[in-house]
């Protein structure tokens, strides 16, 4: 009987209900329904659909049945508990059927008691599916004007852009689109740098798009705890590498983008998508299941073209370092400044820009990704999937 009740709740969720499982009618036939499949969906999927209904209702919308069915049929990505049974449902299946004894396996749960992290395991797998679908959509052919604009002008001086990978990629792409394609003989190497906290944040963002893996806290702890800077944030090392490759006399440290823009003869430099802490964390989570759907070399581009564009300006402020690492940050920043100054690289801007910025008075504490905020972004992507380029951009939840 309780299975019919559970199926009744499933049907209601498909129709947009937001009633919690524990408040679902337990007596009579009001809350009962016919089985919609062989197995009840897992508690994680049901909880996610209820949260999606709440999210849609807050925006005055309803969840289309096709999307509801996708959520109910989704898997759970990554390590951890697999689909969990609903608490209060008698497990034994039809007489004589093996399995589903209910005596073994993880304990049944109340879906409302599941953590946001547990729901994100389902949501990120669904978003990854959408991103993988977008991979099959061919890139639009560049128009004549775009092709003409991107032809390298013969009078453009030889240069390359190195340094902070997250920003350098965007600057290179923008310059190429303007006909300032990096390259040429004996180029000047412009090394993009910034204050060390910003460099670290961008190193983490680049890593989330390229490889996924560590959380912001884990990323900081792994490096600060070991006393090192991660390779993507070690500006002094990047400068040495550029000096080795292009010649020390041809390396210039860039700490003022406008000065570089003037030197290259462009009105301004391109910038990477501005993603907040929660948005980057969502990209990190989606990248994990996506790694099993597309070749690893395609993953960063796909994530940039889908989530990078859709999450632009969303996800709160960038992450910041917990105060316990202030001393480490300052030491590393001063070491970097000293190394660059000692090597006498020409600088566009002021080397003091490398040092940590003083905390603003309005800053109440370190910014770190919060599961609830990450889930809210994921719900937006479930309601308006990234399967088509240029799809509507969801508004950030208050």
């Amino acid at each position: 009987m309780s299975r019919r009740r559970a199926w009744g709740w499933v049907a209601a969720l498909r129709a947009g209900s937001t009633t919690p499982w524990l408040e679902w009618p337990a007596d009579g036939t009001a809350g009962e329904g016919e089985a919609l499949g062989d197995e009840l969906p897992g508690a994680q999927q049901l909880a996610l659909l209820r949260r999606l209904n709440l999210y849609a209702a807050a925006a005055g919308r309803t969840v289309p049945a096709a999307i509801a069915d996708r959520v109910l049929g989704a898997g759970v990505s990554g390590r951890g508990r697999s689909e969990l049974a609903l608490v209060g449902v008698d497990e034994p299946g039809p007489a004589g059927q093996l399995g589903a004894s209910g005596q073994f396996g993880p304990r049944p749960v109340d879906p409302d008691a599941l953590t946001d992290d547990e729901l994100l395991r389902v949501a990120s797998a669904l978003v990854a599916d959408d991103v993988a679908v977008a991979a099959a959509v061919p890139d639009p052919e560049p128009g004549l004007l775009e092709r003409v604009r991107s032809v390298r002008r013969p009078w453009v001086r030889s240069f390359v852009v190195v340094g902070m990978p997250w920003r350098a990629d965007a600057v290179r792409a923008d310059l190429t689109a303007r006909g300032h394609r990096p390259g040429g003989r004996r180029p000047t190497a412009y090394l993009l740098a910034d204050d060390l906290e910003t460099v670290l944040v961008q190193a983490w963002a680049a890593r989330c798009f390229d490889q996924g893996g560590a959380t912001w806290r884990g990323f900081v702890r792994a490096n600060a705890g070991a006393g090192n800077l991660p390779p993507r944030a070690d500006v002094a090392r990047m400068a040495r590498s550029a000096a080795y490759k292009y010649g020390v006399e041809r390396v210039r440290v860039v700490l003022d983008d406008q000065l570089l823009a003037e030197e290259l003869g462009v009105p301004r430099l391109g910038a990477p998508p501005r993603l907040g802490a929660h948005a980057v964390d969502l990209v990190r989570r989606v990248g994990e299941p996506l790694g099993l759907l597309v070749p690893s070399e395609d993953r960063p581009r796909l994530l940039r073209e889908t989530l990078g564009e859709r999450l632009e300006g969303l996800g709160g402020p960038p992450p910041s370092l917990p105060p316990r690492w202030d001393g480490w940050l300052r030491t590393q920043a001063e070491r970097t400044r000293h190394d660059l100054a000692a090597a006498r690289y020409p600088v566009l801007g002021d080397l003091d820009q490398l040092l940590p910025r003083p905390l603003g008075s309005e800053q109440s504490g370190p910014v770190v990704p919060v599961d609830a905020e990450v889930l809210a972004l994921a719900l937006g992507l479930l309601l308006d999937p990234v399967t088509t380029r240029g799809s509507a951009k969801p508004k950030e939840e208050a």
Partner: protein
Amino acid sequence: MSRRVLLHVGTPKTGTSYLQDVLYKNRGRLLKQDVSYPADRFDAHFLAALDLMRLRWGGLEAQAVGAWDKLSAEVRAHEGTSIISHEILASASRSQVARALASLGHRPGGDTSDGGTEVHLFLSVRDLVRQIPAEWQENVKHRARFGYGRFLELIHDPERAHRVGAWFWGVQEIPDILDRWGADLPPERVHLVTVPPSGGSPDLLWERFSAAFELGELDLKLTTQRANPSLGVPESALIRRINRVAARDLPPQHYRPLVRELLAHRTLSKRTKSARLGLPPDQYPWVNELTESWIAELSRRGYDVVGDLADLRGAPAPTGKWVDPDHPPERQVAAAAVDAIKALLLDNAEAHAENERLRRKLEVARRELVRARTPRLMRSMEWTVHKLEHSGKGRQALEVYRKARNRTPG
């Protein structure tokens, strides 16, 4: 469409590597006898399992894209018997199991009347008395930094909220694994292979595998060695300490060959006189109680058992002193550390020698490249100078020439 699929889904630490090694190395012979073990690399089924379960595994998952679909297509294309084997499949969820069985041609209820595949499920199982310490040790060999006590706490959590507990029971809770994998199969097509107790004939487990998979009648070469790379208490403690200080700095592609293979498998596993890792005495009561409930349930279900369900009871608690890997004998850890340092030094020396050999080879290649790019006339001149410098008259002739050109050697 394949007639039969023998699907071996676990559990870990039950001799699965040996079975897979035999099957992989004999896949050509097997195919001639109408049995397919479809694998173009030794870890093909592992990658397929990662793909099916969308599991990340230290970067290896990047090689797993589409691996399950490829494997299942090969199985469907074979007309005879196919074998699939990997122990991490034990943790698959119900939806993943449904996808896997459907992709192999399984029909609901195992119906074969209209061309459905006859899927036989195999689960090799070992007592928890040995599996619990073995799983912690496996965690340690995969970069884990938590102690044995913490591991026991995590697997004791009834919510299984931590990934360690969830994974442990996902691959070790036999009735639940069979609930997920065997719910849609007739019980006579579910085969349990029990690992015999310690101290028996070393061939007994293989004989059981051989009987279960009907390999006894086939012509196979059993030339591979049965590896037993288990570690003792001080050795496990040492690896854990190494993980605590170095695992974060060592990327997986270096950790695997250096720590797991060189230190754990090739060096520390040879120290067999140290105390063996075991279950703490206070854990026996709940383990025994759980085991009895499993035996009762499995007996009731009527599966085909190769071996004896009583094997799951494991050995009783030893009467001697139990050695805690969280507080190991320090002298023994130090001795193990010296062995580890020696192994690393030798390996490093070998790497240095190899570097030197490659450096010399590179230098020769560089010279040849320069030579190949040098014009023929220049090479002829160099050859002439070289020859002239090796004879008295030649040197005189060169001197005259250089005076005439107002140049000096050097």
